């Protein structure tokens, strides 16, 4: 955007208009699809639960004129948010989600980094194939893949059958419906989001830097630790956020693989909406989830911006 601003005084008016239109279309789109629904969610979170359709009150009635609008705003309050603090289920669910998201991101990094590193160490003609394999899971539905994991991890699933057959265990292991299954599901699902940014950072790494480090007395390990790792930091940060942010609100994986014992805020949200039909509380949960996510999202944006500036 800065470039456009700097050149504005030099550009003819027609071009400025065209640019404005060009930019305004995607921004209008974002506004309509993000800000408007979000405003609606905030509004619902400030409403009260009623047994009706829609299941909350007040509703905005423009037919009532000014008095109707005033009545509508008077009907809004922070009761639901107060309720959230009174029941320890909610903050426990937030904390549990945070914990699962942090641990899952760390595991995804530990698994994804070596894969990305390995991909940049092979001959260049192999790289497109390997990239393809990383992206391949996206070709089937996310839901089908999670269901497939139920088949793999279950009591009579593939893993248990294989281990029983090999004689490693004599009782089937309980993996499905435990936090372990949730971690496996999250790491599997979000691995490409970790691998791709790290791969792109490592691919840009100039080999002569590694030779220079070795020339200056580094062993293989210190070269990695002092040169490769810091220079892939932007990719690590980007990948970690891309995994952490969606994982925090994840609903499908914990509800399908985690059973009733895994407490995650995404599941609580779903239950409030569809089981309890308590839309205002569910909306309040969603608003707070977004507020929690705003911090990492801003950090992520800043990292992206710094990277762009460094590349100049």
């Amino acid at each position: 955007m800065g470039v456009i601003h700097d050149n504005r005084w030099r550009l003819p008016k027609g071009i400025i208009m065209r640019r404005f239109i060009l930019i305004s279309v995607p921004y209008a789109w974002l506004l309509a699809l993000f800000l408007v629904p979000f405003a609606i969610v905030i509004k619902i979170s400030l409403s009260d639960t009623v047994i009706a359709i829609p299941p909350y009150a007040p509703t905005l009635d423009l037919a009532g004129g000014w008095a109707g609008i005033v009545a509508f705003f008077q009907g809004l309050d922070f009761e639901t948010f107060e309720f959230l603090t009174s029941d320890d289920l909610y903050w426990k669910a937030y904390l549990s989600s945070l914990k699962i998201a942090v641990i899952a991101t760390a595991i995804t990094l530990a698994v994804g980094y070596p894969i990305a590193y390995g991909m940049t160490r092979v001959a260049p003609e192999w790289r497109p194939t390997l990239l393809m394999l990383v992206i391949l899971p996206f070709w089937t539905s996310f839901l089908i893949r999670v269901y497939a994991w139920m088949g793999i991890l279950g009591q009579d699933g593939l893993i248990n059958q294989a281990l029983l057959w090999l004689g490693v265990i004599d009782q089937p292991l309980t993996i499905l419906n435990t936090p372990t299954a949730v971690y496996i599901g999250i790491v599997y699902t979000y691995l490409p989001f970790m691998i791709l940014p790290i791969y792109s950072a490592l691919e840009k790494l100039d080999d002569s830097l590694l030779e220079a480090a070795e020339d200056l007395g580094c062993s293989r390990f210190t070269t990695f630790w002092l040169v490769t790792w810091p220079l892939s930091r932007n990719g690590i940060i980007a990948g970690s956020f891309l995994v952490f942010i969606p994982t925090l609100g994840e609903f499908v994986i914990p509800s399908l693989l985690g059973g009733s014992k895994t407490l995650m805020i995404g599941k609580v949200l779903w239950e409030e909406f569809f089981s309890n039909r308590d839309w205002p509380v569910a909306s309040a949960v969603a608003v707070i989830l977004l507020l929690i996510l705003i911090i990492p999202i801003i950090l992520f944006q800043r990292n992206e911006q710094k990277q762009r500036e460094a590349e100049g």
Partner: protein
Amino acid sequence: MAQVAAQKPVFAPWDDPKQAPLIQFKNVIKRFGDFVAIDDMTIDIYEREFFALLGPSGCGKTTMMRMLAGFERPTEGQILLGGQDIDAIPPNKRSVNMMFQSYALFPHLSVWENIAFGLKRQKLPKEQIDERVNEMLRLTRLSKFAKRKPHQISGGQRQRVALARSLARAPKLLLLDEPLGALDKKLRQETQFELMDIQEKTGTTFVIVTHDQEEAMTVASRVAVMDEGVMVQVDTPAKIYEAPNSVYVADFIGDVNIIEGRAKQISDQVNIAWAEGQPSIVGTSTETTFAPDEKIYFAIRPEKVSISAEKPEDTPNAFQGTILDIAYLGNISTYYVRIPSGQTIKAQTANTRRLSRRNFTWEDKVWVSFTTTAGVCLRE
């Protein structure tokens, strides 16, 4: 060193049989698959030398340097550093440092940290590292930029950081891979003298790879002209220029007239029949003897050919022709003189006068001439 103050001795350890070479290549062969990059090379490089490897791209000069650094291993033969076979020593254990063509500065580290990088690996005490880094910063005039990151300084400054970083560990041998390739011409010339100055101050042996012959001639104590994995000639810049041992070297270094003919040798004097209707060129050959009627190449530098309106009387080598073309280069002009038998001879003169007072112009009839010792007689 007080006793040498009276007369500075010529630096020529390669002529002194008592000197032990720092680096020895012994019948080194390097193959990449079927491709022979280095073909049976034997060469000694001495301490404090500034040794230039010169040649076109793909001639093996970079391979040679990478073998010294330890990034490549010879397929056959031995490389000795200070008498010790270095084949088994990995790059991080060699007392050899390299300045990379791309500089390979660590972008996430400041200038100071880049220079300190190698010292920290040696686990020196902090004060010693500080002292050494500051010394390097002073040597390369970078003290002001110590805190900057590589992308915040200019190309010339980056080049000096790369040099300081590779010199910081005080290596026995410093390898420079096209160190000035990324600089513009003016900066390159200044930096060449800086390099020589630093080499002299630190007393380090430098091996430089370059494809720029002027650069090699300026900085080096000896130049090795390479072609297809072979060192065609290894000599001082003056000898390479004045006494090339082959047409390849004569043609590669500087501008040259190469005249093909048939030899007729009488003791040192060689008469070369080279063009119909023209008197023979009289040349001198002390080291080689040509068989009667042997094919010979007479190489003469354009600046050793003079051009005049009247026939000069003091040399048998005088030929008349017409000026075909004039290349005006500011300080000098090159005249392309066509001899009636069809050959063109280049003659170069310094433009000591202003352009408007120039003596000769296109289509003028002139005499080109040179002394009997001005050129060299070569076989193919």
